């Protein structure tokens, strides 16, 4: 990740501040967190390289995607790099709110322990287990754990898969999960030129076109069961839902967002209150990413 990318994120944060109410409160932490990840990856890259070998056969990709099979490419993750990023993110939390230093100290102890007993390289599944452990032990609340772990994992994935992702023939792909890594998506966009639904993998950043009126999780195309909600003052974030599998995902309508190079992951973080609304309306995240804590509820004036 280059510094220019960091500037891109900063611009996006500024744009989101104008678009979404309440986001300004997350901004200082988000800036700290992105800074922590970017600078870690940059220095780590210089020291020993974070890049893992990715087995990707272009000829096989064509027939696999055509047959509706995702490439399922999951690079191995260097345990040291992962723990390093998670540690930096923990530091970022402490810098913003020093009063929760104790739980971050506990978090770092768990990370040390994880590094000791793990092999040099781990897979995504082991990282999820670590996340569940941290949540189960009440060290990080679910939303913070989702934030920290998705940020760390996606930074490593994107770093390793960016080149492959760009060359992938996603025009052949009609599935709802990621064509490259197989992960279930959490957000996407409506393209400004023609309104096409483009889904972005939160993990590896691959983008692909998906039929507008179709559920990416259960492939339901029954129009009566599909729909979306927006909030009255702002229609740039649509929460799309499917009543058959009771799932939701978010679409950002770039026709109503001025500017180019939109960083969707920042928009996702800026609209976490929509995730809360979706849960209150009875839907669960189709991606499996839980952005809402247990017992977290809307506080209404009336």
């Amino acid at each position, binding site marked *: 990740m280059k510094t220019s990318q960091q500037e891109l994120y900063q611009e996006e944060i500024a744009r989101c501040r104008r678009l979404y*109410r309440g986001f300004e409160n997350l901004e200082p932490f988000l800036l700290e967190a992105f800074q922590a990840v970017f600078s870690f990856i940059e220095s780590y890259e210089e020291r020993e390289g974070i890049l893992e070998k990715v087995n990707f056969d272009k000829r096989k990709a064509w027939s696999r995607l055509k047959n509706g099979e995702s490439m399922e490419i999951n690079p191995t993750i260097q345990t040291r790099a992962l723990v390093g990023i998670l540690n930096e993110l923990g530091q970022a*939390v402490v810098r913003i709110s020093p009063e929760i230093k104790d*739980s971050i100290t506990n978090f770092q102890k768990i990370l040390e322990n994880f590094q000791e007993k793990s092999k040099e390289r781990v897979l995504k599944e082991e990282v999820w287990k670590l996340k569940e452990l941290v949540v189960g032990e009440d060290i990080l*609340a679910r939303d913070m754990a989702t934030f920290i772990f998705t940020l760390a994992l996606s930074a490593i994935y994107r770093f390793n898969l960016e080149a492959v992702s760009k060359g992938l023939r996603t025009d052949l792909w009609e599935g709802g999960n990621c064509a490259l890594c197989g992960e279930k998506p959490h957000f996407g966009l409506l*393209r400004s030129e023609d309104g096409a*639904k483009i889904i972005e993998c939160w993990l590896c950043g691959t983008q692909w076109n998906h039929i507008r009126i179709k559920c990416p999780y259960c492939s339901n195309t029954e129009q009566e069961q599909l729909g979306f909600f927006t909030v009255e003052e702002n229609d740039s974030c649509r929460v799309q839902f499917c009543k058959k599998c009771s799932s939701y995902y978010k679409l950002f309508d770039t026709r109503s967002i001025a500017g180019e190079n939109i960083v969707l992951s920042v928009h996702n973080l800026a609209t976490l209150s929509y995730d809360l*609304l979706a849960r209150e309306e009875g839907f669960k995240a189709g991606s499996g990413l839980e952005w809402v804590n247990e017992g977290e509820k809307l506080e209404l*004036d009336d």
Partner: protein
Amino acid sequence: MELTRRSFLKLAGVTAAAASLTSVGYGKAQAASGERLRIRYTQEFHTICTFCGVGCGIICNVRDGVIVNAEGDPDHPINEGTLCSKGSSISNVSYVFDDKGKPVPNPKRLTNVLYRAPGSGRYEIKDWDWALETIAKRIKDTRDRTLEETAVVDGREVTVNRTNAMGWLGSAFCTGEENYLFHKMARAMGIINIDHCARL
């Protein structure tokens, strides 16, 4: 070693409140609460533009049973998300203007099958199953009643298997393949008056 809650607490030596996004300043609940973000539900439905023979795909946005917006369907192979000026304003077709010039949903919009029996002075509401079955039955009856099996041509009796009692009109909204099948179907029934709606 599997790290259990107890072994962890021993390891850490302290217990503390879990760090959440609220603890770094971001309350999702506050962002959505107070003067509450009011939710608006919308449904999307596919349709085909009714104006010309190109047959562009449209996605209609429906809120509380009323069409609020229509846009080109980006997944439709004909128009790929675009619409002409007539097509872009097609959602207005479902509205009429009241005394104050405000658009209101057209109360006369047909939402049922209306049937007027021969000789009757009034319409009855019917369902689609009844309508399609009746149409099929009448086509079959008319064809059976009027089918000419042979005709005399140049003093010779030849097989014709045709009916002059019905005609078949093709549609420019259908694909070439669909129209091919309709043509075959009409021919199979003995219909010889086949025409097309294209204004060429």
